[in-house]
C-alpha cells in the first residue's frame, strides 16, 4: 500500500513536470485563454479553430513572443454546451489569471460566457459567433472579429439580383446563432423584394431533419438558407437528396467547410453555395495573399485536414489579435489589454482587423469588419460562382 502510494506520487510529479510550461525567454510565458467546443456535436469546428490558434501561437513565439515573453495557450473545452462555456471562462480567469481570452465558437456559448467577462473584467476576442446580440448587449469586454449575420447579409446583398431569389425558406439550428441568422437574412430578402417562406429550426444535436425537409418541400420557395454546423449541414444535404428537394441551397455563418461536405455528403452537396470568410483554395485572392498562402502551407505541413482551413484561420486571427492587444497594452493586464484593443490594427488571414464601436453608448463592444466571400460546389470542386467572378 505504502509502495503504491509512493509510486502514485512519483507518477503525479512526473505528469506535473510534463505539463510545466517550457520557458525559453526570460520570465514565465504570457497565458492566453482559448475556449472552444472540442467535444460534442460541433467538435469538428472547435478542433480546427484550436489548430489555427496553435499556428498563430507558434508563429508569434518564433518571432520572439510578445513583451519579451513566450505566449502560452490555455485551451478549455466547452463541450458545445453554453453552461460549460461559462465554467471554462471562470476557470481561465480565476484560476489561470489570463489577461485575455479567445472564444467561444457558438453564439450561445459566447453569450453564456459574457457575464463572467464583465464580472471579472477580462476581454474576449470573439472569433466565430454571428449572433447580433453579442455586440449589442452593452458588454464592453467583447471584441468580435467574425461578422454578425447582419453583416453577412449585407455581404450577400450585392449578389441578390444574380441569385434571382423570389422566395426563400430557412432551416437553422435552434440557437442564438441560427435564430439570429434567420431574422437577418429574412430582413435582407424583404429589403430586396423577395419573400420569406417557411422558417424551421432543429436542435443542435438532432440527426434526423426529415420532418423539416418535408415541410420545406411542401412550400413553393426557390431557395433554402441553411445555418448550422458542418455536421448538420452534411445530414441536411443528404436527407434533402433522399427526399428529392430541389432548391438553391445557401449556407451562412462560414462554418460549412465545403471540402468536408464534398467528402462526406458527396453528390448531395453539388450546386450548394456557401458564405465563407476564408478561401483556402484561392489564398492569393485574400487581402494578404502571402499570409494566407503561408497559413495554408503551414496547415498542410502539420498534417491538419484541408477541410478544416475555413474554420482554422479564425483561431489564428483570434490569437494574433489578442497578442497585438498585449503588445499595445505593454503589460499582461486585462484592463490595459481591453483599452489597447481599441487601437489595434493588425492583418489577419481574413484581412485587416480593426475595431469599431457597436452597441449602447458608453458600454460599446468592439466589432471588426471582416471580408466575406461566397463559393459554390461545382463538379465536386470549389468554384467562385460566375457572378462573384465578374464583380
Amino acid at each position, binding site marked *: 500500500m505504502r509502495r503504491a502510494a509512493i509510486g502514485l506520487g512519483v507518477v503525479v510529479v512526473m505528469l506535473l513536470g510534463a505539463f510545466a510550461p517550457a520557458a525559453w525567454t526570460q520570465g514565465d510565458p504570457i497565458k492566453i485563454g482559448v475556449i472552444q467546443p*472540442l*467535444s*460534442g*456535436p460541433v*467538435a*469538428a469546428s*472547435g*478542433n480546427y479553430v484550436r489548430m489555427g490558434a496553435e499556428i498563430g501561437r507558434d508563429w508569434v513565439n518564433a518571432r520572439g513572443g510578445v513583451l519579451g515573453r513566450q505566449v502560452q495557450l490555455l485551451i478549455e473545452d466547452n463541450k458545445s454546451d453554453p453552461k460549460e462555456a461559462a465554467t471554462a471562462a471562470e476557470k481561465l480567469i480565476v484560476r489561470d489569471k489570463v489577461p485575455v481570452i479567445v472564444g467561444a465558437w457558438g453564439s450561445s456559448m459566447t453569450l453564456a460566457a459574457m457575464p463572467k467577462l464583465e464580472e471579472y473584467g477580462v476581454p474576449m476576442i470573439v472569433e466565430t459567433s454571428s449572433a447580433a446580440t453579442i455586440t449589442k448587449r452593452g458588454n464592453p469586454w467583447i471584441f468580435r472579429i467574425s461578422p454578425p449575420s447582419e453583416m453577412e447579409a449585407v455581404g450577400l446583398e450585392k449578389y441578390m439580383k444574380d441569385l434571382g431569389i423570389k422566395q426563400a425558406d430557412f432551416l437553422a439550428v*435552434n440557437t442564438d446563432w441560427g435564430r439570429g441568422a434567420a431574422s437577418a437574412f429574412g430582413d435582407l430578402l424583404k429589403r430586396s423584394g423577395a419573400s420569406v417562406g417557411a422558417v*424551421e*429550426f*432543429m*436542435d443542435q*444535436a*438532432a*440527426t*434526423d431533419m*426529415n*420532418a*423539416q425537409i*418535408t*415541410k420545406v*418541400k*411542401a412550400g413553393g420557395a426557390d431557395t433554402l438558407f441553411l445555418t448550422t454546423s*458542418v*455536421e448538420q449541414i*452534411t*445530414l441536411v444535404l*443528404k436527407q434533402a*437528396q*433522399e*427526399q*428529392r428537394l430541389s432548391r438553391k441551397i445557401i449556407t451562412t455563418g462560414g462554418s460549412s467547410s465545403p471540402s468536408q461536405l464534398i*467528402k*462526406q455528403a*458527396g*453528390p*448531395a452537396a453539388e450546386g450548394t453555395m456557401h458564405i465563407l470568410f476564408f478561401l483556402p483554395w484561392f489564398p492569393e485572392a485574400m487581402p494578404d495573399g502571402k499570409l494566407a498562402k503561408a497559413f495554408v502551407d503551414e496547415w498542410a505541413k502539420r498534417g491538419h*485536414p484541408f477541410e478544416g482551413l475555413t474554420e482554422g484561420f479564425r483561431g489564428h486571427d483570434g490569437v494574433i489579435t489578442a497578442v497585438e492587444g498585449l503588445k499595445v497594452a505593454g503589460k499582461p493586464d486585462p484592463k490595459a489589454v481591453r483599452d489597447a484593443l481599441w487601437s489595434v490594427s493588425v492583418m489577419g488571414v481574413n484581412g485587416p482587423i480593426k475595431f469599431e464601436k457597436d452597441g449602447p453608448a458608453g458600454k460599446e463592444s468592439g466589432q471588426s469588419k471582416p471580408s466575406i466571400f461566397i463559393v459554390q460546389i461545382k463538379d465536386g470542386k470549389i468554384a467562385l460562382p460566375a457572378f462573384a467572378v465578374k464583380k
Partner: protein
Amino acid sequence: MDQLLQHLLNGLLLGSTYSLLGIGLTLVFGLMNVVNFAHGEFYTLGAYGAFAALVAASLNFFLAIPVAILAGALIGAACERLLLRPLRAASIDTTMLVMIGLWITLQNAELLAWGGVAKSVPTPFPTEPVAWGPVSVSRLRIFVFVMSALLILGAHLVLTRTRLGRAMRATFQDRETAALMGVSIERIHTVTFALGAGLAAAAGALLGPVFLLYPSMGDLAAQKAFCVVILGGLGNFVGAAVGGLLLGIAEELGAGYVSSGYRDAVGFVIIVLMLLVRPSGLFARAERVG
C-alpha cells in the same frame, strides 16, 4: 396529402430505429433490474465498430455490421462480469451509479480513441432515392428498417421460444429456483446483458452510416431509448417496440405540423401525459411484483 404521406413514412423509419434502441434497454431493465445508463455508449461502440471494420480492416459493409454487433456484445459481457457481477446483491441505486460511471468512461474513451471530429461511414447503396409517386426514401434507410424489424423479431423469438429465453426469464423471476433447476444463473446474467448491449450496438452499426459518427452520438440515442422504454412500460418488450414507432411518428408529425423548434418536446409531452394517465406504461398489464 403528399406531405402527410412523406411525414408518416419518415416517422415509421425513424420510429423503427427508436424501437431497436428501446428493446435492448427494456430487456436489461425488465430481466436484470439494471438501469443501463451506458446503453447509448454501446450504440456508439457499434457505430465505431462498424467504421473500424470497414475502414481499418477494410471488410465488406454487410460483414462489418455483424462484427460490430459481436464486438458490442462482447464488451457488454465484459462489463457485466467486471462491474455488475460483484454488485449482484446491491440495490438498484448502486448499479445505476456504476452504469453512469461506465457511460462517462466509455464516452471519454471514444473521444480519446477517435477524436471529436465527426466521421461518415461509406455504404454500398446508391445515393439515388427510391420514389413512389410523391414520397421518396433512400435505399439505405429501407435496409435499416428491414434489419431493425428482423432484429426485434429475432430478439423476441429468442426470449419467448428458446431454452435460453426460458432460462433467462426463469432466472430473473426466481434466482434460487432457477439455480436448483440446473440453470447457470451467472452465465444467464452475462448473456442477457450482452444481448442488450449487442442490440444497442446493432442500432449503432445500422444508423452510423445513415447519420454521422461522433463520440457523444450515444447521448441522443440513449435519451430516445429511455423515452421509448417509459412510453412502452419499463421492462415491457412489445411495449418498447410499439412505443418506438409511436414516438417516431409523433415527433415527425409534431415537427411537421406544430413546430420544428419544439420537436423533442413533443415526445416528452406525450410521456408526461401518459405517466399521468397510465403510470406503468402503454402496455402494462399488471404491476410487477418483486
